[in-house]
């Protein structure tokens, strides 16, 4: 019996010693994963039977899968029996003022240009009653409600909008899709649900709201965004402020579903704890993000700024099913110290006249490894499909690595696919040139790196672009010297 089979055998044969009944009383599940844990999570959330069955099906499928070995990353084998898969969100200890917050954290906030109010919120300081986040939330909810836009936690949506969840959950990323998507489907903690009805344009970046709403979604986050016909939404996930989490493994799933003429813009800034300078600790970020351009003329656009996590494994993709649909992927991935990133995109052209763009900018510093991995696939019916891919790598120092793995599969002779790739090094010459004009090395690197990533940063929502620029500079601080 193979080692994996042996583990599987142990997993499925041993009885769960605490039993399901007593378990339900607890705030968190004991370590490990089995069917009882899945039932426990579902029961904790008061889920309907069909969702429990869905989770169990995912769990059983997960047992038959193997952890993917193909990403260009190295880490010790994950012991899934040593992980706690559910714990109730704990309210943070409330602090009375910013004076009680770790000064180092405040310094970082300052460098990022995060507002005082948000600093308070992020570090768990009690907020002034007038601008209480609850009232902000209520205002947002009212505005959105008038337009028929649903924006709530996924758990809430399961109860309030079961017909939508039943229809769309797993419709873009099936529970059987891959190892981590199956795991997420079995044990997902919570996440967001967003539905934009026919003909509605969401009038605000769903960013501000989301940032207020972001805490406590847990390590197996699941997001579902549905844009109905002629709908538009711009959605922002994440935060430039450093995020720490005691859970090392994060396996999130994001699904986007775009009907005819719909457009969804999804922007991410990921800054999870990357581990220390010696490469100890840090988040494993194994994410499945996919959008389906279901209807004709629909468009899905991914923009990501990835600076955090010890290991990132993430390929936001678009399935271009509708004719004339458009998929875009704009990415800046920065790795420093011992970080490893294997990230890129997949563009699957199924419909006629479908168009996709991939712009990937990788920046490697320290002893890190940064890989671009992308697939452009043109199906035989996808007449006149077009793709443009540009993958640029910037190296800082001579101990890091940049890798590019582009895959192209073309099954229709009318397709036009272009791929450009460059690798360059931040030169001493460039830095000296800046120095000679009075710019110190830190600011010189910030300028050079932001210039390199400009095409992607330009795609971010305005107020966020500025923070993201500062974040890039901050991540690379002291990496040349």
């Amino acid at each position: 019996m193979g080692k994996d089979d042996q583990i599987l055998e142990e997993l499925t044969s041993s009885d769960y010693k605490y039993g399901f009944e007593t378990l339900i009383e607890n705030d968190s599940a004991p370590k490990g994963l089995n069917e009882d844990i899945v039932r426990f999570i579902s029961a904790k959330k008061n889920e309907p039977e069909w969702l429990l069955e869905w989770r169990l099906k995912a769990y059983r499928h997960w047992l038959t899968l193997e952890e993917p070995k193909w990403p260009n990353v190295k880490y010790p084998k994950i012991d899934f029996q040593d992980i706690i898969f559910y714990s109730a969100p704990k309210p943070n200890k409330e602090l009375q003022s910013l004076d009680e917050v770790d000064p180092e954290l405040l310094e970082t906030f300052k460098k990022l240009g995060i507002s005082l109010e948000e600093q308070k919120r992020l570090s768990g300081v009690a907020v002034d009653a007038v601008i209480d986040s609850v009232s902000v939330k209520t205002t947002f909810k009212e505005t959105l409600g008038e337009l028929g836009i649903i924006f709530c936690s996924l758990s809430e949506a399961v109860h309030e909008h079961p017909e939508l969840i039943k229809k769309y959950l797993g419709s873009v990323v099936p529970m059987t899709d891959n190892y981590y998507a199956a795991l997420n489907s079995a044990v997902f903690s919570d996440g967001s649900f967003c539905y934009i009805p026919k003909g509605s344009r969401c009038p605000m970046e769903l960013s501000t709201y989301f940032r207020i709403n972001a805490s406590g979604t847990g390590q197996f986050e699941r997001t579902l965004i549905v844009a109905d016909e002629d709908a538009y939404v711009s959605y922002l996930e994440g935060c430039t402020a450093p995020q720490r989490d005691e859970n090392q493994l994060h396996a999130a799933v994001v699904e986007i579903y775009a009907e005819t003429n719909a457009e969804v813009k999804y922007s991410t800034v990921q800054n999870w704890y990357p581990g220390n300078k010696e490469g100890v600790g840090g988040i494993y970020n194994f994410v499945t993000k996919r959008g389906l351009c279901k209807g004709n003329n629909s468009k899905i656009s991914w923009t990501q700024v990835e600076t955090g996590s010890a290991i990132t494994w993430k390929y936001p993709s678009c399935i271009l099913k509708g004719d004339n649909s458009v998929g875009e992927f704009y990415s800046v991935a920065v790795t420093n110290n011992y970080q490893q990133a294997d990230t890129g995109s997949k563009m699957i052209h199924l419909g006629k006249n479908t168009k996709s763009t991939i712009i990937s900018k990788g920046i490697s510093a320290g002893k890190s490894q940064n890989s671009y991995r992308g697939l452009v696939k043109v199906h035989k019916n996808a007449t006149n499909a077009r793709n443009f891919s540009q993958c640029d790598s910037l190296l800082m120092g001579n101990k890091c690595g940049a890798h590019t793995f582009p895959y192209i599969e073309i099954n229709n002779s009318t397709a036009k696919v272009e791929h450009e790739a460059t690798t360059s090094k931040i030169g001493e010459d460039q830095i000296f040139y800046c120095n000679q004009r009075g710019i110190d090395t830190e600011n010189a690197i910030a300028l050079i790196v932001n210039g390199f990533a400009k095409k992607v940063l330009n795609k971010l929502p305005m107020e966020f672009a500025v923070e993201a620029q500062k974040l890039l500079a901050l991540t690379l601080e002291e990496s040349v010297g």
Partner: protein
Amino acid sequence: MLKIKNLHAGIEGQQILKGINLEVKAGEIHAIMGPNGSGKSTLASVLAGREEYEVTEGEVEFLGKNILDMAPEDRAREGLFLAFQYPVEIPGVSSNNFLKTAVNQVRTYRGLEPLDAVHFLKLMKEKMAMVEIEQKLINRSLNEGFSGGEKKKNEIFQMAILEPKLSILDETDSGLDIDALRVVANGVNKLKSEDNATIVVTHYQRLLDYIVPNFVHVLYNGRIVKSGDKSLAFELEEKGYDWIKEEVDSVA
């Protein structure tokens, strides 16, 4: 303004400057000429603080301060400017953004308030007119895809913006056609005042028709072997460098 005493410097263990002595006062233009490999560009790089070069002996005093221990950015902030022989390209960074960062870091160092966008734009417009540089060059990424002449014009534009006390032009004339040369020289002349000084490093006399020096120095084998006025430049143009080499080598 600038006092160089017995400066010895080299790179990777190879001695290039072997005892340079030079004094530059405010209001003066000095030309440093010499054959290839005599150490002209090394001198410019050492003054600007390029890390690869090691100073083994001697002193350099700029506005009363020893600059050899200063970081290159601090020398720049003190008012030392180097117009590069080969200006580097920085993709994706606009001249506007680059210069605003530079100007404001310099201002902060000098205890001045940073310029806001409006005042900075005004400064840009004023200096653009002064050095005859086109808006379209400023809008592009810094030096990216610029011709040789455009790069040199941009160096002079940066000099105009930063208003240095001492400007060192390192072979600014190399690779320029006559029109570009005139534009560059006009810029330098307009920026000239009683309070600042210029060191023109060049191989040819040509540039000195436009930028007229008070002093001409010949650098050979790591030392200044001859100094004179503008007529020395004409003599070199006529006779080449060989007679100087012979003179020096026979003494040695």
